[in-house]
């Protein structure tokens, strides 16, 4: 067994495999299929200060090698999370991380401050990129200034590991990455979904209720990998790679491109046990290549 442990800005993980926000519920939904403690971290559903009903149905459409969604951050709000969900998940022996969204820097900061009080939550992941919410994260994540302002506000309110999740729907992801690191991000994760659309040609209407949605799954992997590679070269903080990872080979590509850990999202829908298989597959690769530790392959592309 190789040493799979990684450290993301002070947060110790038993392996580099995490689950992506919005695709794994609170982890509990998958507890029948895998031992949740076998994965390095679980990023729970997007949480906002106030409850949100999300967008109307239809919220999902299957596409070539992927899917579009416009769930729109449906959640019961941070108070409900703290009172009802946290007690159910706090004893799961892995890193339970809360994905935080908001519609203004103050909301983000207040939500983060609430979660800062929860002892067993070692980190938050700031979603500055959700493309679904009309008044939501979009505005922050697409300009270096907007991204800076929200990260700065949260940094002042949140004392533990602050991961900032980047949107791919931007001109230069590297510029945004640099500005959120300047604002105090401890780590970055990327990518969130790519904005897309699908049309019902019989009805001549968009299929999704709000017309557009976020593309995820293997269709986005090459784009995600390229962005992770660019960002990992440009910043000093750890980068968490995600987007279309379906198996261990995909995960290893991200690690080689410079990601210190990876997240798996849509693939859980196809195989609810994929996360543990990927962790095992990374181990097998390391053994096959005579590596003692996963750190040996992070960013280890040959010139």
């Amino acid at each position, binding site marked *: 067994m190789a040493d799979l442990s990684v450290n993301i800005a002070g947060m110790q993980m038993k392996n580099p495999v995490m689950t992506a926000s919005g695709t794994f519920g609170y982890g509990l*939904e*998958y507890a029948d*299929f895998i031992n949740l403690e076998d994965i390095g971290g679980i990023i729970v559903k997007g949480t906002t200060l106030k409850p949100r009903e999300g967008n109307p149905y239809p919220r999902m459409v*299957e596409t070539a090698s992927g899917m579009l969604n416009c*769930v729109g951050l*449906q959640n019961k709000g941070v108070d409900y999370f703290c009172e009802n969900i946290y007690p159910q998940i706090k004893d799961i022996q892995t890193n339970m991380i809360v994905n935080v969204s908001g519609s203004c820097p103050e909301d983000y900061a207040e939500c983060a401050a609430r979660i800062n009080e929860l002892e067993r939550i070692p980190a938050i992941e700031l979603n500055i990129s959700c493309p679904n919410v009309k008044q939501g994260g979009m505005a922050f994540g697409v300009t270096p200034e907007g991204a800076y302002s929200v990260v700065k506000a949260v940094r002042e309110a949140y004392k533990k590991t602050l991961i900032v999740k980047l949107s791919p729907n931007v001109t230069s992801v590297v510029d945004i990455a640099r500005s959120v690191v300047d604002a105090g991000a401890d780590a970055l994760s990327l990518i969130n979904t790519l904005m897309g659309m699908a049309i019902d040609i019989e009805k001549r209407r968009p299929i999704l209720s709000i017309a557009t949605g976020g593309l995820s799954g293997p269709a986005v992997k090459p784009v995600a990998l390229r962005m992770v590679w660019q960002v990992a070269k440009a910043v000093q903080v750890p980068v968490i790679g995600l987007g279309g990872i379906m198996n261990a080979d995909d995960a290893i590509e991200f690690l080689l491109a410079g990601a210190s850990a990876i997240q798996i999202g849509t693939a859980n*829908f196809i*195989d609810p046990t994929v996360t543990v298989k990927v962790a095992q597959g990374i181990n097998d690769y390391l053994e096959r290549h005579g590596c003692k530790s996963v750190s040996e392959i992070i960013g280890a592309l040959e010139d």
Partner: protein
Amino acid sequence: MKKYVLDLKVTSTTRPHERYVLLKLTHENPLPEMLPGQFAELKVDGSPSTFLRRPISINYIDRERNEVWFLIQMVGDGTRKLAELKPGDRLNVVMPLGNSFTVPEVKSERVLLVGGGVGTAPMLYLGKTLVDAGIKPTFLLGARSAKDLLEIDLFQELGDVYLTTEDGSAGEQGFVTQHSILTQQKFDRIATCGPKPMMMAVAKFARNSGITCEVSLENTMACGVGACLCCVENTKEGHVCVCKEGPVFNIDRLLWQI
């Protein structure tokens, strides 16, 4: 109820009709406990345009042969690929998922099961469960024409069966809600599954007659386990997941304009 990912083995496939396939599958170990109205998410291999699993209702459980049955209508690439399975092939399924139809405590309840098209699929296992619970179900099954009425002999073993077809080739001509049985007999409870317009008509009849009514929804799904919130139905309590809190809903929870 614990959910499983299982590699089932196909024991037989039959084509009751050119647009339908009945898959029977087994497993080395006893199949898990499953309730009527629950469904499975079937993995489709070898179809490039089919990325997600396909939700399919549990049609029947044959405990003696340790078999689960899926009755599938071929509508697109995914279901067509499933229809190509051969005996001996493996099919990866996640099950059992969702809630279930209510099996009344009171044995004297008069329960009517209304199925339309492939929506008759879950009614067979529901009927069997009711019989096992000491309740004799009545079935009202509708289809386009006689050849679209599937598994009728099996329904007849469980209870009285009334039929409608749109072309009049079997039973009474018209839609299920036009069948004379609805005026001739009294029912305490209706369970229905089928095309949405049919279920809405049944729900309307039930509401106007003061009959408890449960419907089974078919919202498009991604995860099937309540994790992604893609499959929501807007209800009196807001958006709820059809895959987890459903697919079976009492009509009083829904916002249907009926």
